[in-house]
């Protein structure tokens, strides 16, 4: 893919492909094919916003369409693909349903596997060792620290994601939303509710970046690590 470089006497720090990319950028700007600021906006959108809204649309659709909900719970990958979302081959998406008696929460104890096609990028606390360890050991305590105080009679099910199977939570539809349209419902669904660290319209949700699960997570300003 490289091209002959005839300029041996004046070596430049630009690799050939980098020079080609830069030339294209100049050319496209010149031709008005690349509005000012567009590249930065695209990169930022794709780095940050492969958003939880995909998951929210899945949830809202399941709330209004019982047949879809049944398909979602039976085969999450296929039902999510119906709405045009999906991941690379080989990844299975599984939706687990919250009920008044059962609360589901997702973790990846091994690393930070996350259903990114539907939930976007994982929050930094999701990747933190304290979250990964404590959500298995003492989910009720950790959820309380994260702002979700579940009654003792609610069973907590912890789902351990892996590279092969990635879980998302189907939250309960909040009461008093009977008249809302599907897009309005989707707007109610939060990322944390789909991870299971929050319930919708039930408990105060911890803020983006969250309180610190064990006090060891400093600087939660950045929601992206890696």
């Amino acid at each position, binding site marked *: *893919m490289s091209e002959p470089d005839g*300029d041996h006497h004046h070596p*430049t*720090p*630009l690799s050939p*492909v*980098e*020079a*080609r*990319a*830069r*030339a*294209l*950028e*100049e*050319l*496209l700007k010149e*031709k008005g*094919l*690349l*509005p000012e*600021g*567009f*590249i*930065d*906006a*695209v*990169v*930022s*959108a*794709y*780095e940050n*916003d*492969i*958003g939880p809204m*995909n998951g929210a649309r899945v949830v809202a659709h399941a709330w209004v369409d019982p047949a879809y909900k049944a398909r979602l719970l039976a085969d999450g990958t296929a039902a999510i693909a119906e709405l*045009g*979302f*999906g*991941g*690379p*081959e080989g990844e299975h998406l599984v939706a687990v349903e919250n009920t008044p008696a059962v609360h589901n929460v997702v973790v990846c104890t091994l*690393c*930070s*596997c*996350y259903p*990114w*096609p539907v939930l*976007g*990028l*994982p929050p930094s606390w999701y990747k933190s060792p304290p979250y990964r360890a404590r959500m298995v050991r003492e989910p009720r305590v950790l959820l309380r620290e994260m702002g979700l105080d579940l009654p003792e009679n609610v069973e907590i099910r912890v789902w351990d994601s892996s590279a092969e199977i990635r879980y998302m939570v189907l939250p309960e539809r909040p009461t008093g939303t009977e008249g809302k349209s599907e897009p309005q419902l989707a707007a109610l669904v939060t990322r944390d509710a789909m991870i299971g660290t929050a319930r919708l319209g039930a408990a105060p949700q911890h803020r983006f970046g969250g309180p610190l699960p064990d006090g060891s997570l400093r600087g939660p300003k950045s929601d*992206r690590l*890696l």
Partner: protein
Amino acid sequence: MTVRVDATVAAMSGAAAPPRRNGELVFDAPWQGRAFGMAVGVVEQLGLEWKAFQQRLIAAIAAHPEAPYYDCWVAALEQLLLDYGAVTAEEMAAARATVRADAP
């Protein structure tokens, strides 16, 4: 400026799938991110479907399976611009010459 994420771009799979780490796009150098943005912008500005780019990307990867992903990406973008007459080969050569001359 706000850009909406296009699901067909975000969900590219198989050989055309961009390098990711747990869902996050991985750019080894800033120019790779800029090349990514350029392709999305060009497809939109020319009113094309994403598959017009994706097909060329797949072809570029097939032609040079050993080449790094974003090298193929740039080749595919060049091909797309040439194929749709948005840029001529002469203009491209001239722009490259200018970049080389300007480089420190």
